[in-house]
């Protein structure tokens, strides 16, 4: 009797596991269109850039791809948890400086940053190895900060992340022997080909997708929409938030490392309030709760900024040259953002993702 029941029990649990596995695969199949379409969008932009072969345009698109990494990193935490974070650019700062420490020529390093430990002074890695280590470093930092911060929620959590950003900025601006203080750290090898940035951005998109359909990501989104019900169903909200925080911190670190390689210099103030706000704006304008929204927000706002800059430089129509006065670019950007948000308060995409089938809501 008991043997029979235990046998049916095992077969039952086996079936349940199989069913769950199938459900997971069904979910993956149903949602994988989104990251593929987004990657195709980025690949298309990159290909066009390579075909035009223009240097300044190349640099612009590299900037766009780096920002895609930032905004996708922000989405992993903000979009899934619903908690606005101002601190993520701090992890970008950590990643960028880690990349600088790992890739600058040891001779330059020992004169510019004498405070670094010996083993780090001797190290010189290839940029992509450095970028991966930088991402891990930022992820570990996010784990340490997150352990403390994720106990908070709502606006208190937002402010605490703000405090983290300000702390990182203060430390990096003043720890002269290790970070060079407020003066810029130069000598980071500049990577001018566009492909590494494209790979980074596509990797970030797939990481975000994989996190979003993982058990932890699903639980976190449940907690975002119905915190009480999710907690009652056994979702450990601080833990799931911590997972998202660490993953997104690592992605931000990767973005920081790539940004360091795209411009070749880092200063603490590059990674402070203005970058925080521009990336947050891109996410919110695109739609805070949607991966597609984040990517589309970056592409649209970057295109807008570029178009306005171009008009500021002067456009010739027929014989006359029209140029917008200086400063109009930022003002127009602000006004357009306000208009978009007033018309679509939850961003361009809202909570939806782009898919091939219509009306597929991302819950």
């Amino acid at each position, binding site marked *: 009797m008991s043997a029979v029941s235990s046998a049916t029990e095992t077969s039952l649990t086996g079936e349940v596991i199989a069913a769950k596995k199938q459900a997971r695969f069904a979910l993956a199949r149903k949602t994988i269109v989104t990251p593929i379409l987004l990657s195709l969008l980025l690949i298309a932009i990159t290909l066009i850039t390579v075909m035009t072969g223009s240097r300044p345009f190349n640099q612009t698109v590299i900037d766009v791809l780096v920002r895609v990494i930032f905004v996708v990193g922000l989405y992993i935490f903000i979009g899934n948890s619903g908690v606005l974070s101002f601190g993520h650019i701090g992890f970008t700062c950590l990643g960028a400086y880690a990349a600088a420490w790992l890739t600058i020529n040891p001779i330059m390093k020992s004169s510019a940053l004498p405070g670094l430990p010996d083993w780090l002074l001797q190290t010189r890695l290839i940029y992509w190895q450095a970028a991966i280590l930088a991402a891990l470093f930022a992820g570990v930092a996010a784990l340490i900060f997150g352990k403390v911060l994720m106990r908070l929620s709502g606006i208190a959590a937002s402010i605490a992340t703000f405090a983290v950003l300000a702390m990182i900025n203060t430390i990096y601006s003043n720890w002269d022997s290790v970070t060079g203080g407020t003066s810029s750290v130069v000598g980071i090898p500049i990577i001018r080909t566009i492909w590494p940035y494209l790979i980074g951005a596509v990797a970030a998109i797939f990481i975000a997708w994989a996190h979003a359909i993982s058990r932890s990501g699903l639980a976190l989104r449940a907690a975002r929409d119905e915190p009480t019900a999710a907690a009652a169903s056994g979702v450990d909200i601080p833990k799931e938030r911590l997972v998202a925080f660490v993953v997104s911190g690592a992605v931000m670190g990767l973005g920081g490392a790539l940004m360091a390689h795209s411009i070749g210099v880092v200063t603490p103030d590059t990674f402070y309030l203005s970058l925080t706000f521009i990336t947050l704006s891109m996410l919110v304008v695109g739609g805070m709760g949607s991966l597609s929204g984040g990517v589309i927000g970056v592409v649209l706002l970057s295109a807008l900024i570029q178009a306005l800059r171009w008009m500021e430089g002067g456009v010739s129509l027929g014989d006359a040259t029209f140029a917008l006065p200086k400063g109009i670019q930022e003002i127009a950007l602000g006004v357009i953002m306000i208009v978009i*948000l007033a018309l679509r308060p939850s961003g361009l995409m809202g909570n939806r993702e782009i898919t091939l089938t219509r009306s597929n809501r991302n819950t």
Partner: protein
Amino acid sequence: MLQTLFDALSLGSLYALGALGIALIFGVMRLVNFAHGDVIAFCVFALLWPSTDAMAIVFAGQLPWYLLVPFVLLCGAGLSVLCEIVVFRRFRNANPATMMIASFALGFVIRYFLLMLYSSRPKSISLLPALSQPIEIFGARLPLLQLITIVATMAILIGLTLFLRQTRFGLEMRAAAENFSMARMLGVRANRVIMGAFALSGALAGAIALIFGSQTGTVDIQMGASIMLMAFIATVIGGLGSLGGAVLAGFLLGAASVVMQVALPVDARPFRDAFVYGAVILVLLFRPQGLIAARGTKERV
């Protein structure tokens, strides 16, 4: 010792006034107003004639003080109300993140508008020069300005308390802060209350602009941002929506900054702000709802 106390009080006054300006608006419409810092900057620039020269051409700044002060306060209140009418009115029902980003975008617009008119170079002005002379109190030499800052802040706080407690408009505002939809159903006019809150908050920004402008003697587009950041943090530590809490936390933050500046070992002094922010995180961990939790901010299930 006395010097430290006065430093702490005068820095705290600035933070407290800033935090109050943010808390007033948050109370009535759950908006964290990032444009507040730029309203402060606007008020200072209103004293100058628009020009991109390095020399500041003082315009309204030459007025005698009894005209100058109301002029700046009105500037702040006017701009703030304008922001409400043009922008924030459209975001009444939006979620807090959207409103926050909209307010940031608005601040951006104001900042670059100033930049276009005045250029980004910091300019020096001497506002009310008579105030920078030191005076002697209890054996300590203090700038008269510091004393006036503290006295003016106290006067503003007392005036505001009386206004909120004694007048009908103040009552409506407190009711709206506590439960906005209930207050509306009981006949409080939403637009009037919100515009009142914006006007008060703008006038407070004007007051900060006057104090800060005469303390530093420079006019800079970025000047609002540094105060804003601390004021913003003070609002949250104090308990969002709680006016008393905002003021208390503002003074505490000012005190913490000044005390750490004196007490920390010399090597660690450049990192003072990092310690202040660390303390902020600690406070939030123990009291996530703020030092003085406002009623009605916690959502009921």
